[in-house]
């Protein structure tokens, strides 16, 4: 099903094949001490068959973004405050909790970060797979069994018939990860979010898993949102990338464009911190300082306190979004034609301000 979605926000493209469009989404966590602005006004879209990477340091709101898309923000503290999440033409924020259950798993699904703990230890994986299938199809037991076997086969589990009666603790980490993938994809959702799906796996299994995701995507036209803190994985996996910093997307665009010409000093720093094959030795570049607390955000640009280029303007007001080309946007005052400060030289590692 493809639907035309009219977008007014500049950062969101309008495309016939857009299956997910997020518009000015804000998700806050209200703790007793403070309000944590985990997601603070982000917009992006995802097309059919496309892989969008969301990159950023730990704690910048990636997981909270993902959970918002499923409306599974931890309650009662967390709440989606404003925004639109248009999935297959409908704003899911307008749906009731009952209607949401039909959205989850069927239209949008998610692979959680840790495969070791994502499966229920007291039920067989056959049981857990059939449960996901059964709610969608209400079929009889036998055909569901067949579908469960198919689901396992689709993620390259060997001898799936024999695996159905296994418990999670009887499987290896990589196998569990694939089973989690099979469960998440069993109802053929149009969008799947993979939240740092490989951090718990070793490198070869990581690569296998990423390749598997791409294969499934090629066969089904699945839209993937791939969350990671590793720009190297982005380069391998994604078509487009959104760079998150302190609850905002500070730059997004085609992976190619962002790698060739990163506009935001933070993106430049992130790319510089990716280990390159030809420079195995030597220290990796690291950004000095800490990201701001999401409960106590600075007035202006959130990266300004760590940015080598920051001017008074950067500290005073949040930058506008500037369009470079083909959906490549970045939020940085230095991109303004009227910018008076030091021009951003590409690939110069900002040294950061300390204190």
């Amino acid at each position, binding site marked *: 099903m493809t639907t035309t979605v009219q977008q007014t926000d500049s950062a969101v493209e309008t495309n016939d094949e857009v299956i997910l469009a997020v518009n000015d989404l804000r998700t806050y966590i209200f703790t007793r001490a403070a309000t944590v602005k985990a997601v603070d006004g982000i917009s992006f879209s995802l097309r059919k068959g496309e892989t969008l990477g969301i990159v950023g340091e730990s704690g910048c709101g990636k997981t909270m973004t993902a959970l918002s898309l*499923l409306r*599974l923000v931890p309650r009662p503290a967390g709440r989606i405050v404003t925004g639109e999440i248009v999935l297959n033409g409908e704003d899911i924020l307008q749906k009731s909790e009952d209607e*949401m*259950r*039909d*959205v*989850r*798993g*069927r239209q949008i*699904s*998610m692979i*959680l*970060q*840790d495969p070791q*703990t*994502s*499966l*229920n*230890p*007291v*039920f*067989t994986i056959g049981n857990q797979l059939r*449960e*996901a299938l059964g*709610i*969608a199809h209400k079929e009889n037991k036998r055909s569901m069994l067949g579908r469960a076997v198919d689901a396992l086969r689709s993620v390259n589990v060997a001898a799936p018939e024999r695996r159905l009666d296994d*418990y999670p*603790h*009887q499987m290896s980490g990589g196998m569990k990860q694939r089973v*989690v993938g099979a*469960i*998440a994809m069993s*109802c053929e959702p149009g969008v799947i979010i993979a939240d740092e799906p490989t951090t718990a796996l070793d490198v070869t299994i990581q690569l296998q898993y990423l390749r598997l995701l791409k294969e499934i995507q090629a066969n089904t036209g699945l839209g993937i949102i791939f969350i990671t803190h590793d720009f190297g994985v982005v380069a391998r996996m994604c078509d487009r990338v959104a760079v998150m910093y302190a609850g905002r997307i500070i730059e997004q665009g085609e992976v190619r464009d962002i790698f060739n010409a990163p506009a935001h000093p933070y993106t430049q720093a992130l790319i510089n911190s990716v280990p390159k094959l030809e420079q195995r030795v030597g220290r990796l570049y690291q950004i000095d300082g800490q990201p701001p607390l999401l409960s106590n955000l600075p007035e202006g640009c959130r990266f300004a306190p760590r940015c080598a280029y920051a001017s008074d303007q950067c500290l005073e007001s949040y930058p506008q979004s500037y369009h470079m080309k083909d959906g490549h946007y970045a939020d940085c005052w230095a991109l303004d034609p009227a910018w008076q400060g030091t021009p951003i030289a590409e690939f110069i590692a900002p040294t950061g301000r300390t204190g």
Partner: protein
Amino acid sequence: MQRFIILRLLQGLLAVFVISLIVFALSRVAGDPLAAILDDESGKEQIELLRKQWGLDQPLHIQYLTYMRRLLTGDLGTSFKWDRPVAELIAEKLPATIQLSAFALIITGVIAFPIGVLSAVKKDSWFDTGGKMFAILGQSAPTFAVGLILMWIFAVQLGWLPTSGKGGLRYMLLPGFALGYYNVAAIMRLTRSSMLDVLDTEYVKLARIKGIPEWRIVWKHCFRNALIVPLTYFSLILAVLITGSVVIETIFAWPGIGQLVIQAIVSKDHITVQAIVMLFALLYIGINIVTDIVYAYVDPRIRYS
């Protein structure tokens, strides 16, 4: 699973053996078994006769073997006080105790698990706070006090329920609740806290992502996992029931084993006390084995290790 059960049964047998040794040893350490029934005027020959008759002149290990042989054939000796076979006394009183304990256990299950689960699901609500207070009371008030207070309110003041004795369900309510209250409170708190842990796990998140209805997530995915912790305390529950029954049966004049053992202790009826202690130990071991099997059924990680 079969191997697990067999292994557990063998361990149980070993425990029974060790306990029989201990009970036997205690009965010999506790003083001359004859002292209780003989007075100072008893003649020397009479004492010797009884000694012979009871086998007390034999070496200890022979005495133990005799004791075990009798035990295995169901011969628990004859009570001094009632002048009847102890086995008969126990057979007469045991059903009442089992009835009351089972009732207390059912109350525990029926009240503690749902309240524990709901307290976790509705954390920090008035329901949760109320449950917390109910539990604190149950865990701090001694069993006899709960029994007396309940009796005073519902039997003496309101006159809704009988004060004591054995009869239908009406007679069981007060002693059953008094006996079960501590366990209700303990299991409620355990269920709540383990439920909170489970609700926070990744597999519950995955279940939500699958689009499963919330009630199913709570009662299928969470409850079975949350049950594991309270289950490990099942043998403690039983210990509370056994010790509690002694107190509660006395307060509510419930004609069970608890009452029997108190009467036997008061009249220094060693044989009866010894038999009942052995019985309690057997019950305890038996329930432990059942618990472990249920536990293994609930948690496959145990079943397969």
